[in-house]
Each structure stands twice: as structure tokens, then as C-alpha cells.
């Protein structure tokens, strides 16, 4: 531990499980922490683990002036944005740097470039990665019919500044086209303030595969392997694993190699994830996330590395903490996202009267939950991530199933039953999951109320 690390102080500009995750990395690196919090989160217990806490508002974690003022008056030298909220805001990254504070993330320029999905698509295509057939960058509504003639249906209309499934419409029938475009635009405008979109050929039964990379900003880039994240509902990931199973090693090596080369050419800084669809033995780039991701622990489990520590190291030293040859891959890891929601997928906030976390070999729990915690209704429903490591995939799967069974959360509803049900399906066991799987499992795509007597 170099002495430079002992004098740093970092503002955590986030909440919940990722706030405590960042806090833990800072603690063992001897970086002092200041936890920004809102009045809604004033009773969160992780705030007491920080060296200092500072209230930034009623409920808003998107208030850039408040966060920067909070960092300034507490003498912070760094800000970690976590994921979500301002983690991919080039405005925030610029403002942080302008205030003389180190942003633990990429340059504002790279955030902006990758935040515009149409630009991202063109950028990585120019850097040698395959993209799904579709429009050259953004396209106007008038141009779509002729594009459809070229590439055929189905297509996917995607908001340039979209994410999380918002501003996205799949079109199977040309008759649905104009409605789908206006719906996607309306939704994108409401959610992201921009209605621009691009079009991609829709690949229905694909797998979602992603590559974790880490760059130092001057051209050195390593990858930390692949993840499989096809278990999604409405584009929201539920279960993720590393490495991506059942794909020929040579193909994965080629993919990770291409990602490293592209990110090196960009001189990308920070942790980042390149997301791909995998179908017919080929990978197609979808988008890049220029931040830490929710599912980063599975990559940590198979490499024994700490991605947040690696982010902080790059921010502090402008170089990577380790080289590619230092990264060894071992075993398999699977993560379940436990959400506070009922069986109709509606949020289930409220008082957690009792919480008992699982344990045992290979089990990791990232959560801000405690008995007596009140899950607020103002934020997203992720309350815990349970991750299992095993020497092979099946061991990890069984351990994870036991861990979810062990997990006891009373007072609110959770999706634990659904997670266990998915883990037990032959599709999951045999690794035949596509992004459609959960929807098909739920039949009508909305509920998962179990028929009585179902052993799953």
C-alpha cells in the first residue's frame, strides 16, 4: 500500500448495495470515505461505516451541484458514482473534474461517445467489432421502410440515449412500424429527453454475452473474461454468470481480444463492459457501459480480483494494477438479483422485519439490508445480490440455489421464488437460456404465480 493512498478521501455518490460495495473497497485501500445520502436513506446502516456522511437532499441522487458541493465541503479528492444515477453522465464527469476532483470513471468524452448508442455502434464497428445489421447511426422515421426492405423483419427500434429496455420496440409486422416508432420516441423523450433512434435487425433467440474490460486511459487494457446475462425479464437482468458457458473457448478468446484491441485504440480509462448478442456462432455488439456493473461480482469470483479496487487504482495512479498475464480464470460464478417485488413484479417496499443472510463455501452477499430496514419506495427494487462460486458451473448453481433457499427476508415480498424456479429449470441447468427464456417461462410474460404442487 503506497502512502499516496492514505491521504485520499472519496465521496460515494450513490446508495444501497453499491454504496457499501464502494465503501468496502475504499476501506481496505485506506481511502477515507464520505457517504452522500438523502433524507429518504437517512437510516441506512452503511452510512455509519463511512468515515463521514453528508445529506445532499430529500431524495435526489442526481443533483450535480449538491454532490459536488458535498465533496468540496468535506474535502474529498475523489468521487465514485457507482452504477445508475450519474455514473454515465458526461455532465457530471466534467463537473467533477472541473472542480479539481478525480472522477472514478472514464473521461467525459468517452461517456458521451458510448452514451449515444448510435455513435457507440459506429465507433466500435470502425474499431473492428461486429455490429448487428441496421441503420448507419441514427435514422429518421422516413428512412425505416427502405431499411426494412434491405435487412428484413423483425427489427428493433432503439432510442440513441436509451437503456434498461426503455425507448425500445420490436417490430415483427410492417403494419406495426409507425406505431412502434412513435411509441419508442415518446418513451425515449419522456425517459431520456431525446427522441433520436436507430434501427437494428432483431435477433430473437440470442444470448446476451458481455466482456469486462479495464483500461488505464493511456492505451493499456486488460479483460476479465466474459459473462452470460441472458436471464432477463423485459431487458432487466435477473441472473448473471461468469464465464459465459457452452461457447467454444477459441471464439471467446477472439471476442475478448477484439474488445481489448478496440478499447486500447480508444485509450479507454476505467472499468467497462461491452455487451453482445450471440447467435449462430457469432457475436454482435449492442452497447457499452462505461461504468461498474451490477453483475461485476461474478467476474471477481472467477478471477479473485476486486474490480472496484482496480477502478480506484487506475484513478489514483493512471496505470493498471495488474497485467493480462496476472489474471487467472478459475471455476464458475453465478449471481442472483434479489428484488423487493411481488409475484406481479410490482415493487414491494416496506419494513424488513427480519433478514437472515445465507453463507457457506463460495457464497458472497452484497447487500445493504438489515433486520428493521425500511425499503424505500423512491428507488429501484434491488436489495441484495447473492453470488455463488463453484469449481464448475453445476457446483455454483447448486450452491446458489441452497443460498437463496437459506435467505430469509420477512416483511416484504421478494423474487426469491422466481430465482429458484429459474435455477431449477432444465434450460438453465443445461445452459439453453436465451433472452426470451424468462418470458417463455412465465407464459404470459407478466406473472409467475406458481401452480400449487409445482416442485420447483
Amino acid at each position, binding site marked *: 500500500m503506497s502512502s499516496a493512498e492514505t*491521504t485520499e*478521501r472519496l465521496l460515494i455518490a450513490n446508495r444501497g448495495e453499491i454504496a457499501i460495495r464502494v465503501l468496502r473497497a475504499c476501506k481496505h485501500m485506506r481511502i*477515507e470515505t*464520505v457517504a452522500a445520502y438523502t*433524507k429518504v436513506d*437517512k437510516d441506512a446502516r452503511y*452510512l*455509519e461505516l463511512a*468515515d*463521514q*456522511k*453528508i*445529506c*445532499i*437532499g*430529500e431524495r435526489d441522487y442526481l443533483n*450535480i*451541484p*449538491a454532490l*459536488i*458541493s*458535498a465533496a*468540496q*465541503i*468535506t*474535502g*474529498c*479528492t475523489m468521487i465514485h458514482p457507482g452504477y445508475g444515477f450519474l455514473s454515465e453522465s458526461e455532465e457530471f464527469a466534467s*463537473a467533477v473534474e472541473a*472542480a*479539481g*476532483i*478525480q472522477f472514478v470513471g472514464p473521461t467525459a468524452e468517452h461517456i458521451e461517445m458510448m452514451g449515444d448508442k448510435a455513435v457507440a455502434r459506429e465507433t466500435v464497428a470502425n474499431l473492428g467489432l461486429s455490429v448487428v445489421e441496421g441503420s448507419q447511426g441514427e435514422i429518421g422515421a422516413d428512412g425505416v421502410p427502405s431499411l426494412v426492405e434491405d435487412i428484413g423483419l423483425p427489427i428493433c427500434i432503439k432510442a440513441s440515449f436509451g437503456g434498461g429496455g426503455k425507448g425500445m420496440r420490436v417490430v415483427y409486422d410492417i403494419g406495426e412500424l409507425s406505431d412502434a416508432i412513435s411509441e419508442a420516441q415518446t418513451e425515449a423523450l419522456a425517459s431520456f429527453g431525446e427522441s433520436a433512434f436507430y434501427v437494428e435487425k432483431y435477433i430473437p433467440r440470442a444470448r446476451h454475452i458481455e466482456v469486462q474490460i479495464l483500461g488505464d486511459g493511456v492505451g493499456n487494457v486488460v479483460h476479465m473474461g466474459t459473462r452470460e446475462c441472458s436471464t432477463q425479464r423485459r431487458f432487466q437482468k435477473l441472473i448473471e454468470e461468469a464465464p459465459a458457458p457452452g461457447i467454444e473457448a477459441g471464439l471467446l478468446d477472439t471476442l475478448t481480444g477484439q474488445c481489448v484491441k478496440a478499447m486500447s485504440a480508444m485509450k479507454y480509462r476505467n472499468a467497462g463492459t461491452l455487451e453482445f448478442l450471440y447467435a449462430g456462432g457469432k457475436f454482435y455488439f449492442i452497447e457499452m457501459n462505461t461504468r461498474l456493473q451490477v453483475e461485476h461480482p461474478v467476474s471477481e469470483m472467477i478471477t479473485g480480483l476486486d474490480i472496484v479496487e482496480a477502478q480506484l487504482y487506475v484513478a489514483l495512479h493512471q496505470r493498471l494494477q495488474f497485467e493480462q498475464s496476472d489474471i487467472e480464470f478459475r471455476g464458475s460464478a453465478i449471481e442472483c438479483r434479489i428484488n423487493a417485488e411481488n409475484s406481479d413484479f410490482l415493487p414491494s417496499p416496506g419494513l424488513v422485519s427480519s433478514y437472515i443472510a445465507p453463507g457457506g463455501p463460495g457464497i458472497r452477499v452484497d447487500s445493504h439490508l438489515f433486520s428493521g430496514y425500511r425499503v424505500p419506495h423512491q428507488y429501484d427494487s434491488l436489495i441484495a445480490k447473492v453470488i455463488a462460486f463453484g469449481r464448475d458451473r453445476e457446483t455454483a448453481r447448486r450452491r446458489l440455489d441452497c443460498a437463496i433457499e437459506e435467505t430469509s427476508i420477512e416483511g416484504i415480498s421478494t423474487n426469491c421464488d422466481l430465482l429458484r424456479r429459474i435455477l431449477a429449470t432444465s434450460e438453465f441447468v443445461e445452459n439453453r437460456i436465451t433472452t426470451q427464456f424468462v418470458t417463455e417461462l412465465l407464459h404470459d410474460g407478466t406473472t409467475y404465480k406458481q401452480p400449487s404442487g409445482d416442485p420447483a
Partner: protein
Amino acid sequence: MQESDIGEIEIKEGEDSVRISRSTKRDSSASVSPAPQYFVPDIRQTPTEGGSGRRLPPRTNRKESSGPTSTKSGLDASVTPRRSAAVRVPDSIATDVAAGHSTVTAPMVGTFYEAPEPDAAPFVQAGSKINQGDTLCIIESMKMMNRIVSEYTGIVETVLVENASGVEYDQPLFVIKPVS
């Protein structure tokens, strides 16, 4: 401003800008139970109390370019946030706010200034008579000088914050005895 229900007004003139914000008020008479915990979070505990070991020593930012730039206001641009100055709110004050007193709290995170300029007299002091709309203090947030104006007509009982110290959102700044 109160009648119009506007929370803030921002006036920009070239590089300088001044924002006038209504302070958030907490009228203790409207509160059923005094809840000192509610507005006495960790940041305000005195360093000597309890020895929690959670307080950090003062420090400066890596670059010193972050001071106030508003030349018009004349505030000292080299003011270093002093954690140790960050407000003493003895529990007794917080709880004593019960009978007919009101607390003015910070509507934003920032640096508290009691006066328009470093050598000027403070806007208010303990004992000052104030009218609704009078400026109580300035809170600087991201080089923006925000005038905090009073919701009350009355007398300033206590100033809870030291000049040039950092204040968090909702932190009590003044105890005021309103006069109706």
C-alpha cells in the same frame, strides 16, 4: 416570493450569478413531537462528544481552483472548508426549539457565509430583528452564491453555524423566535 410559491430565483449577470432561495422552515409548533434526531445527524456532532472517531481532519482539495469566483460578492476565494467548524448544535438547542421557536435549515449543501463580504458585518446575529424576506446568510454551492432569505418576521435567537463552514442539506442554521 412566498405568495408566488417560487422556491428560487436566479439572477445572472455575466460571470456572476446570485440565486435567492427560500429557506426551508421547520416550525416546531406544527410538529407533534420534537424529533431532535431528525435534524441532528452525524455531521453536526461536536468532535469532543463521544469520541466517535468518525470525524475527519480538515483537508483541501487537490486543486485550489474551487473557491468562490464571484468578485461582486467579494467573498474570500481561498476559504478552505473546515470540517472542524461544521456547526455545533448541542442537543440542548435542538430540543429547546420546542416552545414557539422555529429553526431555519439549509436548503442545499454548500458553504455557509454569514456576511456578504469577508470583512462586512454579518447579515444577522443573535438578537437581530428580522423581517420576512431579509437575507439571513449566503450558501455557496458550486461557485453560486445563494442568498437564504427569512420566512419569518422575528428575532434571531441563535446562529448555529460558524462562518465559512460546510453545511449539509437540511442542517439547522438559525433558531428564530417569530413575532406575529
